């Protein structure tokens, strides 16, 4: 016996609402993470050392999501390296999170360069913690209290980023 039309309609409505809920669950973006405490996480960096974001509380953290295939990411790396060298003692800590699919590629890439900050492999779960990293480059500036105070997406505006960091530590 066929179910009554009303039951079918109700079931269809429920199915549609469920699909919308699933779709909406990943729509909440990184912008909504601004001015909230950065989610803590633990990962192992490329040299095998465990790294927890929370261990840098008290320092200003530039958390940079990047990949070897991302040309703008590669462009900004020398600047971030320079900042780490010059302003590390002043309280800045750059952390690189590679969204490459293959760790060996990243290790080869980093081995050819002198990168003075830790780099770890990211994944979809880590991206989701920060509201979703759906494209690169993407950086989060986290203040000494652990709050995300700025987010940079796409082509880097180095001057803007530098002035934001300057507002948090003395880099003049």
């Amino acid at each position, binding site marked *: 016996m066929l179910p009554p039309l009303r039951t079918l309609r109700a079931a269809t409505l429920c199915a549609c609402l469920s699909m919308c809920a699933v*779709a909406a669950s*990943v*729509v909440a973006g990184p912008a909504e993470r601004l001015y909230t405490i950065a989610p803590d996480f633990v990962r192992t960096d490329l040299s095998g050392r465990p790294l927890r974001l929370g261990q840098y509380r008290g320092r200003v953290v530039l958390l940079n999501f990047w990949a070897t295939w*991302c040309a703008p990411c590669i462009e900004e790396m020398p600047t971030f390296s320079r900042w780490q060298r010059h302003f590390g003692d002043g309280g800045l800590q750059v952390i690189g999170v590679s*969204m490459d699919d*293959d760790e060996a590629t990243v290790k080869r890439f980093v081995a050819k360069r002198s990168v003075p900050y830790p780099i770890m492999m990211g994944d*979809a779960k880590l991206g989701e913690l920060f509201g979703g990293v*759906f*494209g690169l480059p993407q950086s989060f500036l986290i203040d000494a209290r652990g709050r995300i105070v700025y987010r940079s997406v796409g082509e880097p505006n180095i001057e803007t980023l530098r002035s934001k960091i300057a507002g948090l530590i003395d880099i003049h």
Partner: protein
Amino acid sequence: MTHHATVLCLCFGTGLFFGASAVGAETIAASSIPTADILQPAALDAALRPNAAVRPLVLQVGFRKLFDEAHIIAAEYAGPGGASGGLALLRERVAKLPKDSAIVLYCGCCPWDHCPNIGAAFSELRRLGFRNVKALYIASDFGTDWIEKGYPVTKGG
């Protein structure tokens, strides 16, 4: 049994492909795609609605982690077009399709002008004789130009 063996082969093959992803395919700029073959996000959204006349096959030709985070509903992962392994996956996916199949490719890993994948994937399908291929124009990245615009997505592999 045969099905399981096929899945195992695919997984193993995928691992090999991505392990070799450093061995890139020829870099073909997104700007090489003819304007007439570029699709705007709003047009694709309309084409994917249930009442659309012809719903295209949507293939993400970017990177696995970004696909797992979020992708266009009904999109399939076809491997990064900028890597030879990715192009092999793409060829495998379309091998049995008629040459007039409606196919939309997208990446969105990074700004359009810097995308290492979309141009190569588009070029490969054209080389194979597919005549009804479009490339989704994502100016900045998938988050900015699709998700934040409110177009529907889902996540997972």
